[in-house]
């Protein structure tokens, strides 16, 4: 039956990939995964559909989920990310493993938000069970190594820490509403709102100063010195010490040149608890890497495990790549006798050649033209001595 006009379209935010586009994506993916494997991160795959109850997102993210009902009336969602599903996997099936566990993954995630691709390929890693700064440094260095392996230059990883803001909020006993507003202001870089909230609330001078300065504390190690006056708040002191240590390790990993400290990075309403980092590429208006430490997430699943990781958005990087050349066949085989053509093709394939077999009748000119239009370097004609049938 003929399709209606809707049946010829794709849902908003979806795309098909043609052979050359897919080849480019898979090349990126393979390179990225190979780096992960070299660092002893093992690949896992979680299911495409999860119960909504597993993901339990905040109200803002809720709108971005693709939701369905199963036959029992439970709400299902298409996975919007891998971190939470992997937490479910580890806390249900790998409880008794020896930690830390290191996993990597690659797959499509689905986010129903306007403007961007709503289905895109993510490659990422999770390092589960270690709360040490070295674990954070390792995943950050791995992120840099992946970008290098993908031949991407000019990228920058910005590194911040949730503990600075949350430590201040706790010390100053901000009420929930004020904390949320301030966090949102800093996270979204809404300076106008941030300034107006600060001027409307009766906060100690020093706290005002720090809140206004946070979005601008960006640079190399020296930005950490500007937090010296806050040493008396344990959470802030720990955050600064962590960042210093991680920065030191990143120098040892040989990736320091790509790292900028940026204490203004905050991700409001998320599971991140410690170090947070984002990777940027010129010309792409959104972070291509998002990661950090999330020590609270596993507790939600009944196991008290610290964890850290990141995801690279390969889908968005694909747009920036020059077109990638396809691998074509090595030889086109044609002739009038199907039996002989098949036989020859099998021989050649066994010998490791990529072989395209002519299916329909082909003159010598047809064969030559087809080979040149496809970029197949060689044609082989099987002469028809006598058909065995």
């Amino acid at each position, binding site marked *: 039956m003929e399709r209606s006009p809707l049946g010829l379209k794709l849902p908003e935010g979806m795309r098909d990939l043609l052979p050359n586009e897919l080849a480019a994506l898979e090349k990126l993916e393979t390179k990225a995964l190979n780096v992960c494997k070299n660092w002893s991160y093992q690949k896992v795959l979680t299911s495409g559909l999860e119960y909504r109850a597993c993901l339990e997102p905040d109200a803002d993210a809720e709108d971005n989920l693709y939701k369905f009902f199963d036959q029992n009336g439970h709400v299902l969602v298409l996975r919007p990310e891998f971190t939470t599903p992997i937490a479910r996997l580890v806390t249900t099936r790998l409880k008794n493993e020896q930690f830390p566990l290191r996993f990597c993954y690659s797959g499509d995630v689905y986010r129903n938000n306007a*403007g961007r691709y709503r289905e895109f390929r993510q490659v990422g890693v999770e390092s589960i069970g270690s709360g040490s700064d070295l674990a954070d440094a390792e995943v950050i260095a791995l992120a840099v190594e992946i970008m290098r392996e993908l031949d991407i230059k000019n990228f*920058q990883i*910005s590194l911040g820490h949730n503990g600075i803001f949350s430590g201040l909020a706790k010390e100053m006993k901000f009420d929930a509403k004020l904390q949320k507003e301030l966090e949102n202001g800093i996270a*979204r*870089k*809404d*300076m*106008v*709102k941030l300034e107006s909230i600060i001027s409307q609330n009766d906060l100690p001078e020093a706290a005002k100063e720090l809140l206004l300065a946070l979005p*601008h504390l*960006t640079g190399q190690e020296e930005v950490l010195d500007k937090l010296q006056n806050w040493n008396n708040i344990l959470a802030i002191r720990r955050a600064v010490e962590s960042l210093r240590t991680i920065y030191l390790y990143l120098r040892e990993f040989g990736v320091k040149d790509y790292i*900028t400290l*940026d204490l203004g990075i905050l991700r409001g309403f998320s599971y991140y608890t410690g170090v947070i980092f*984002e990777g*940027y*590429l*010129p*010309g*792409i*208006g*959104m*972070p291509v890497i998002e990661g950090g430490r999330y020590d609270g997430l596993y507790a939600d699943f009944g196991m008290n495990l610290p964890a850290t990781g990141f995801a690279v958005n390969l889908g968005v990087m694909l747009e920036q790549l020059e077109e990638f050349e396809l691998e074509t066949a090595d030889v086109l085989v044609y002739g009038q006798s199907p039996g002989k053509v098949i036989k020859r093709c099998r021989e050649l394939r066994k010998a490791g050649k990529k072989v395209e077999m002519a299916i329909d009748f082909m003159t010598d000119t047809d064969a030559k033209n087809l080979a040149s239009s496809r970029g197949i370097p060689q044609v082989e004609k099987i002469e028809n001595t006598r058909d065995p049938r």
Partner: protein
Amino acid sequence: MAKNFLTIALPKGKLLIDSLRLLRQAGLNCPGVEENSRQLMFELPDSQARLIICRPTDIPTYVEYGAADIGFVGKDTLVEQNQDIAELLDLKFGYCRFVVAMPEENLPPQLADGSYDLRVLNHKRAATKFPRVAQLFFNEQGMQITTIKLHGNVELAPRVGLAEMIVDIVSTGKTLKENRLKEVASIMEATTRLVANRVAYRLKYERIQGLVEILKELVKTN
């Protein structure tokens, strides 16, 4: 792309002149922009920058996608579009207010303090170019209102019975008066803002923040 090169989005229309004046005061040499009203792109090689002229409502989109690093845009547009961009500075010009307005002959009852009792408007219709702003306001008031999205001349809607009220921006109040409409509630004030793409603000922090500091001083003294 050079690390210091800036693409600046400016809104076509009434905010353009003030935006350009401010940029020039900040030391950006932008010749010929007003004179060539049909040209949409201006290279500024002296300043390592380029200007693009966009419809005001498109500016958040250019900036969110990173096609422009920074932009000048009214807070009214920002609130309505609710895109993920950094709002760096209140430039204080282009002042306007969001209001609810109704035909003079059909106003809600007044309360003791002189304000209008909006509760009688439940389940009525509001014509507006800003359905998001309107809905946020009415939700906050605990009211249920149907918004009707129009693209311009919303003053007409209550005159012909398309809606009982409008939600619109006013600067002087002249248009309301001409259409025999009266403000019954004030929603919020808006001025022009300097906005930036989130990633550009990190990658080109020195350049953008440098400009912010200069503009901040200019706004203070102007």
